[in-house]
């Protein structure tokens, strides 16, 4: 049976009513947040943050919270590279144990000699050795690459492919290399994976690819950035919470553990996201100041690639741009990133066109997935190899009465 929308629609209406009712209260919070953005003393706040013990993540403050940087002009000739990926996960219902990663890569050149490269690189993995991360000290307990870990491996390959592409750029052409989403491999935050997995995937592969890009940037103006559309993050708002906190040093557990949610002093800005506050604050094309991520994975592993981020007003929405520290600390590369993100979004009707084309190259549709499963089955059957799919999978495909 399909979802009973008759039953769901009334619940949706009720939810919309609640959102509407919260409107006036939210407007007051937004005013308060924007005021605090202007009033907070960055040096004092950074000092307070260092001493604070919060239950939420507060970014490092590198300048005034209210900074508004106008969009710099783009260079006359430049290139934008972007990568994206999708995958077909291991299915225990399928005939063979395998997964597929499809990487989409795009290079767009603008200026006197415009041009484009749109490519996709699908690769099938079925060799057991390639399908697991193995601890050299304990080969008996491999970490199988599937589910969440496969998503991480794919993200690593997106960055590696971008570094490969960047190597072919002419040395005098300013370029921005874009990945879709965050540069922070968030999944590691949960400490789900053992250290050897982090070392092999994060240090030896992901950060190594960032290092390749950094070395390339020594010879040419090359910036690398992760772009997040409609970000849900609340780190700047969390900084405002610290700023509003009457306790010094702030210590959530010591002072506010038993206080009703909504009653804490910092709840004056509760429920807001960074994008809500910055959409009110930044003019079109402007970026915010640069903040530094304090996530534990960045602190513990990223070193010279420590992640910095800023927000940028792209007209219809606020985008979050993450860059490694070596980009953030180089005014030229930071300006290049800012101007090309704004330019790309203008060309892409609100979203960087290179990323949207990379997505088109990478995407594996539902139909492609079915076709892939069919080809795997057929190929195995041709060789008289057992190719039975599970009865559950069959029953999903054959919708009999």
């Amino acid at each position: 049976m399909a979802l009973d929308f008759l039953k769901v629609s009334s619940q949706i209406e009720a939810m919309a009513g609640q959102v509407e009712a919260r409107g006036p209260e939210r407007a007051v919070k937004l005013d308060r947040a924007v005021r605090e953005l202007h009033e907070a003393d960055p040096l004092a706040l950074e000092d307070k943050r260092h001493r604070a013990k919060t239950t939420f993540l507060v970014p490092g403050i590198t300048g005034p919270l209210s900074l508004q940087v106008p969009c710099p002009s783009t260079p006359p000739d430049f290139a934008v590279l972007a990568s994206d990926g999708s995958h077909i996960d291991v299915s225990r219902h399928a005939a063979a144990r395998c997964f597929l990663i499809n990487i989409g890569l795009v290079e767009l050149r603008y200026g006197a000699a415009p041009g484009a490269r749109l490519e996709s690189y699908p690769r099938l993995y079925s060799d057991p050795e390639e399908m697991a991360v193995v601890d050299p000290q304990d080969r008996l307990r491999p970490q199988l690459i599937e589910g969440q870990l496969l998503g991480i491996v794919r993200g690593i390959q997106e960055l590696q492919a971008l570094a490969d592409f960047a190597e072919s750029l002419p040395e005098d052409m300013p370029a921005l290399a874009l990945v879709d989403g965050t540069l922070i491999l968030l999944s590691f935050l949960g400490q789900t994976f053992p250290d050897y997995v982090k070392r092999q995937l994060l240090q030896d592969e992901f950060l190594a690819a960032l290092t390749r890009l950094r070395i390339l940037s020594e010879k040419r103006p090359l910036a690398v950035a992760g772009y997040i559309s409609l970000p849900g993050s609340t780190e700047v708002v969390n900084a405002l919470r610290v700023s509003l906190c009457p306790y010094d040093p702030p210590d959530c557990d010591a002072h506010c553990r038993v206080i009703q949610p909504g009653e804490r002093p910092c709840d004056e800005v509760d429920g807001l996201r960074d994008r809500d506050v910055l959409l009110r604050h930044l003019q079109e094309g402007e970026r915010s100041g640069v903040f530094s991520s304090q996530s534990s994975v960045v602190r513990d592993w990223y070193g010279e690639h420590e992640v910095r981020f800023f927000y940028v007003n792209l007209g219809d929405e606020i985008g979050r741009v993450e860059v490694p520290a070596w980009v953030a600390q180089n005014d030229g590369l930071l300006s290049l990133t800012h101007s090309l993100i704004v330019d790309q979004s203008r060309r892409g009707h609100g979203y960087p066109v290179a990323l949207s084309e990379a997505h088109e190259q990478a995407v594996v549709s539902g139909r492609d997935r079915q076709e892939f499963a069919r080809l795997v089955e057929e190929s195995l059957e041709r060789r008289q190899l057992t190719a039975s799919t599970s009865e559950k999978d069959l029953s999903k495909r054959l919708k009999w009465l």
Partner: protein
Amino acid sequence: MAVDTGARVGEVVEASTDSFVAQAYRLYEAPPLGALVRTGSDTPTFGVICYTTTRGVDPNRRPIARGEHLADEASVYQENPQLELLLKTEFNVVIIGHEESGSVRHYLPPGPPRIHAFVHQCTDEEVRKFTQDLGFLELLLNSRNASDDATSALVRQAALCHEDSQIFLVRAGKELAMLLQGQGMRLNGVLRRLG
């Protein structure tokens, strides 16, 4: 955009006994309506461009207007360099003959061209040789995939390849009058387009 005569202009992407579809190698660079093209090496097959389309490579992605704030059409492509790769030009060709042992045959070849067969725009010499005899007109007029506009365009272009264009046009006019006996209105239409 001008296409070099005799140049390789595209590749067969769909083929049947009496027609084929080719994708132009470069966006918008299909030979003009009525141009004579040749494909296949074992059995060179000749056909006429009867219909050309340009659209998105991905049928699910429709082009959107992009030039409102740009000075001219060329700027739309310069500012969006990916468009050249996301759009494609295809041309439909009606087969009107083939070559067998070096002789022109104004009837269908034994089979359709292969997919990915290269398509060349015929040189003036090839056009002259193929249209020396007017037998191809019958196949063209009776094809369900050809329009009279394509027929007249072919005759007009062929006339320019013959030493005396006027004599060729008169000869073609007479042949058309014979083939379109009893279809006065249609004949008038074709002849009017030859002028």
